[in-house]
Each structure stands twice: as C-alpha cells, then as structure tokens.
C-alpha cells in the first residue's frame, strides 16, 4: 500500500521516523524515538485510523544493549498494519504507558514488566504477578536467562538417561589409538 509509506512520510514532518520498511503491501514498520512514540501512536490512532492495537511486545537485543518495543497497530479501513518500534536502554528500561489509549494495553505492559522487567509508570496492576508467581530470578524472557539450566537445577531430570555420540563411540571401539591427544607434545 503506497499510501502507508506516504502517510509515514507525512508524519515524518512532525516526528523523527527511521527504519521505515515495507514488509508486505499490508504491513510496514518504522522506528520512533522513545520521547515521541506515544504521541505518534496517539496521532496514528486518532488521525490516521490505526484504531486497533494488535499487540505490544518487546525484542531483546542483548548484543546492542537495547530492548525494542513493537506497537503493532492496525487500520481496519485501509486494511493496513503498522509496527512502530521504539528502542529502550536495556539497563534502564522504562516507557510511557498507553493504558489510557487502549484498555488491554495494561495487560501487555504487565506482561512486559514481568517477562523483561520494563517499567511502565502509571499502568494499572503493573507490579502484580501476571503469569509467574513467587518468581525469584531475573525476568525469564531476558536473553541471558538460561531456562534449560534453570529447569534442570530446580526441577531436576529423571535418572536413567545418557547418550553416546556415534562417531566418538566408533572411535573408542574401532580406532582408540588414532588420536593425537596422548602424544601432543610439540606445537
């Protein structure tokens, strides 16, 4: 949809939009600075017909030290979906709440608070447990949280398992001496 790009270009006069990308004819993405994002979203909702908040979610880019929030908005009349990205500092992740724009946003924000530790000041029931209860670790969706190791440590795994690597097994039985390890002297 060409007018989605046009629309973003129009908005670009009042907002600093970057990374505008059209994934499909009915789906585009753009990135807005944190300070402008909620104003942009409000205007998209009120003036541009993006009345449906599809979801709000977050992507963890641990390597770059950022979180990228995605506000997915949909315009029913234009049949167009727009994803607005907002980068947050991973170490001080805080974002303006949009629970006043969409009722269900409070739930999304509550989930993000629990799963990523992002704060949305003013959002209702923000610090209540959502999915977890009595959670005593770092937020589980963070990339540095190793769920398998945690599960093994806390919930244990049943005894009686153990696997053998085929090529290692064949080596042990068929050519055990063909290995450099015991004689690795020189270089």
């Amino acid at each position, binding site marked *: 949809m060409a007018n989605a790009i046009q629309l973003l270009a129009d908005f670009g006069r009042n907002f600093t939009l970057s990374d505008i990308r059209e994934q499909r004819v009915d789906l585009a993405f753009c990135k807005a600075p944190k300070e402008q994002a909620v104003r942009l979203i409000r205007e998209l909702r009120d003036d541009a017909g993006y009345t449906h908040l599809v979801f709000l979610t977050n992507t963890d880019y641990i390597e770059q030290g950022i979180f990228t929030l995605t506000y997915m908005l949909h315009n029913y009349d234009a049949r167009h979906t727009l994803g607005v990205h907002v980068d947050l500092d991973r170490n001080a992740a805080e974002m303006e709440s949009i629970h006043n724009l969409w009722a269900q946003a409070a739930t999304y924000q509550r989930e993000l608070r629990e799963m990523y530790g992002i704060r949305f000041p003013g959002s209702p029931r923000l610090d209540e447990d959502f999915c977890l209860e009595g959670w005593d670790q770092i937020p589980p969706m963070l990339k540095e949280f190793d769920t398998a190791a945690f599960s093994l440590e806390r919930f244990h795994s*049943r005894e009686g398992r153990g696997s*053998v690597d*085929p090529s290692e097994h064949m080596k042990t039985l068929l050519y055990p001496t*063909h290995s450099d390890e015991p004689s690795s002297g020189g270089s």
Partner: protein
Amino acid sequence: MSLKDLISPFYVWQRAFEKPYTQKRPIEDRPGAPRYRGFHMNSEECIGCGTCESICQNHAIDMVPVEGLEQRAGDSGLRPRFDYGRCCWCALCVDICTTRSLHLSNHYAWVTEDPDAFHFTAGTDAMPWNQNSLGYRRDDDYHLLVHDRVEMQALSAEESVAGFDEVMRGYTEEEAVLEADRCVECGICVATCPAHMAIPDYIRTVRKGDYEAGLRLLYETNPFSSTCGRICTHRCETVCVMGYQGDPIAIRWLKRAIVDRVPQEKYREILGDEVEENGKTVGVIGAGPGGMSAAYYLRRQGYAVTVYEAQARAGGMLRYGVPSYRLPDNQLDKDLEYIRSLGVEMRFNTQVGRDIPFTQLLDEHDALFLAVGLNQPSALRIAGEEHPRVLSGLRVLDDVASGKDPGVGKRVAVIGGGNVAMDAARVSRRLGAEVDVLYRRRIEDMPADPEEIRESQAEGCTLVPQAIPVEIRNASDSNQVTIVWGEAEMVADDKGGRPRPVLQEDRMHEETYDCIIAAIGQGGQIDFIPAEFRDRIEFKWNKFVPGDYQQTGLEKLFVGGDIANSRADAISAIEDGHHAARGIHRFLSGALDG
C-alpha cells in the same frame, strides 16, 4: 417468550430413538488410524546415525550401545532409546531418519505405576507393538532432507579428452554451501575414513563460509588436503547416511571447496609455521603421501626430518601415477610446499640401498619411517610380453607426468581395471588414441574408482570386460602388436572372496594394436633392507605387517603406505604416516613399549 420456544426444546426426545453414540468396547475396538503416530518401532536397517537424536526437540532420544550389536563400517552399533517421559510423538525422528528404519506403530497404550519404566530401545527391546504393521511412516513425497547432490561443473567429454586440463572444475561458493547444507553431521563417516578426518566439522565450516577454520581442521588429520580433495578414494562417501535415500554428500568435493578458497600464501599464516625443535631426528624413506604425511606431523612436533626420495621430485605415486587432468601438479605442489616450508629436509635422487645404505639411515636417525610404496609393475607373464610394443601403465603415466611422449600410437589396448589402467587409458585418449580396456573380470569388479570408470567411458574408452590376455604375438606391421585373449567366465569363490575369472579356451579372440599397456598391478621393492633384520620385520606376500602405531619388530623402524596396507590408496598412506608419527613420538618419548 413464544410458545414455540417452550416446545422446541422437547425436540431432544427425538434423539432417544437413535442408535447410541457410545462405543461398546473402546479399548479393544479402536486401534489407532493407519497413519496414527503411536509408539516407536525401528527396523534392522538402522545404522545408529543419531540424526533422530539431533532433531528431537524434547531430548527424548538417547543413542545407546546395544548388546550383541557389532559396530562396523557405516554402523555405529548404537540404537535410539526413547524416553516416554519426554517424547511428544511429533515423528520428526521418523521424517528425518536417514535409513527410513524408524517409524511409528499405531499402538498408543502404556500405563504403569513406575515413572522410571518409560524407556525402551526401539527395535531391540521386546515391546508389545513390535509386530504392528500400521502406523505413521514418512510419505514418499515429503522430505526434510535434501537427497540430490549438487553436481560439480566438469569439462564435457569432448573438452576433457582434448587436453590435460583438470576435468572437475570445483564448486562455486554457492554450490559448496548448498552441498554442505545437506550434511546431517552424524559422523558415521569418520570411522570409515582411513585418516578419520573430522568430516562433519569441516563440512560445517564450508556451510558457514569459514574456510580458514576448515583448513585448520583438515590439517589436523590430513596434510594432503588439496590432493585428497581431488583424487581421494572417498570411502567415507560409501557409508554416508545420505546415500540411503539419495546421493551421499560429496565429501571429497567439499574438502576441495575449502582448499580451493585458501590461497597458498596464507597457509603459513593460517596453519602456523612455528616449530619447536626437540633435538631428535627422524628419517623418512619415500616422499609419497605416506612419507610426507609422517614428515609433516613429525616436523610439527619438533623433529628434524629428512626425507629420502629416489625420484627427482616429491609426491610419489601422486606425481608419477596420477595424471594432471585429475590432479594438477600445482595442486600437489600446494600441499607439498607447505610441508617443506616447515623445514623438512628433502634428499632427492637418493635411493636407499643404491645411493645410501639402509643401516646408515638407521644409525643416523632416532627413528625411521619407511613408505616406499608399490612401484614395481607386475609383469603379464604371458607368451610374447617382451614385445617392444608392450608398455607398462606406470611407465606411460610417468612419461606423461615428466613431459615425455610415451608413443602409444593410434590404437591402444590397456590391460587391467585399476586406477592405473583407467589413467593409462584416458591419457592415451588424450594422446589421440582409440582405446580398448581389457579386464579379466566384470566392470562392477573393477578396483578403479567408479567415476574414473564412468569418465573413461564418457571420454570414449571401450571397456572389454571378462577378457583374459593369453598371448602376445608379432603383428604383420612391426610397429604393431597382436594380442590373443580369451573370454572369461566368472566362478564364485568357495572361500567368499570376489568371483574369479576362468578362461574359456573355446572362445578366443585376436586383435592388433599399436601398443599394449599392461596395468595389472604393482609390487614393492624392499631388498635394500639387510637380511640381518629379517627376523624382526614381519612381511607377508608383498607387504609389511606392521604392529601398533605402524611399528615393526625393529623398534626404530616404522612402516606405512601401500607397502604396508591392503587398501593401497593415498588417504590410507596419509593416515599410516600420521599414525606412525604418533607412534614415533610415543616411542621417542618413552611412552611406547618397543
């Protein structure tokens, strides 16, 4: 509220007269559907490659040794053991199974009070559903693996026969990645590779485009990577699990793909060139793949290595026996040059026994590695073989490699079915001759590589199987020669060996050629070893029988290569050299009991 709304619900009574929905005997009468994903079954085709384990997202599969199951080439002897406290019956293991041995039955009931009981090894443990004939199997038109090999660009038969340009052109980067992508990384091939190269690992480096890491991996087990990337007998590919349903991975070509992408100048930088001298010296007799491999690994460990070679150049059979359209000289040099650059001393034109006594070497060095190869062509030993137009295959190849014209003429008969015979035939084609290849057995018995046979045929050589040369006569033209051959009948070998040809005297043929090239086999020459050591060195027929680590009873002497193994190919010689290097290092550091 309407009257209709009051009465309408009583319609429910109508159903009282219908046949009840209830299943009378649900447990007994409802087997799983023919395609039901029930409990696992495994057939004898399983080779324990562990691909099922790799794909299982629940870590429900362990590969475990099974008692009474021997591991052999291409079978790890392991079998999948299932944890039914993990399995979700997605059947990805069935879809990915390389041999299609794994499938699911339509049995679905397992109830017990013991949570530790839900383990079993499919196919070997007696389970109640082992006889079920229904259940999920992969559809023939559904694949999670790529079964077709990426074919390598090659010269057409017309182009290739026109000269000595390399026939196989190598993979492009994109082709190499596509081919490497097919590998399931099971590692079954590693045991079959004589050098036990880290095949899945270096294939992964091709996929990732990290050729430098690939080169380092190759050199851990094989310093002739460029050579082997071209002319290896690739036994690994014969056991490749991808071969069960499609083409095996082109392991050899992928090795070449790595080497082709690393220029020789970068070898020393990538592989390193620092050697920490340890003050000991080792002599290597023969600069073929076995000798140079030993030299490389010994040098890496700090030994001062001297290689004694009868010929003027290194490479042995790789140089003098393999024509350049299969292995260009510069590729062999690429391998050799790096080995030499580490400081290996080369003594060319030095034949042990003739130019330097064996005992002197034994005295001068702390250990010796002997890999002189098989360089004595077997004679035909049929009447008339001394005819001047009867040439030896090795001589022809040697001449061509040294730039001489062997003078084969316009019509050539090659006798034999090994790689030397094929090469002699293809070289003769390139020199402009019509070529017949006479072979005593059937084409499928030929010891030559299948692609050599295929290519020689494509290039126009005529294969005449089951033809036993019986006599060579003078032809009417003194520049020609006539061969008499009889048809052979194949008889089974009582002791289980390959079928043997028996001459049928009543079916004889006569044909005249410009020359006959004999390439029926080769023997070794080790008369330079003094008789006094005879008792300590085991020798059977025409080969050494080395002990552990290629060591002989003469503790300082290690042997390898064609003259010490039955496989007689480059990669086996390379491993012999590497293994002997391990042995020598252990021996000289006192870790090996002489």
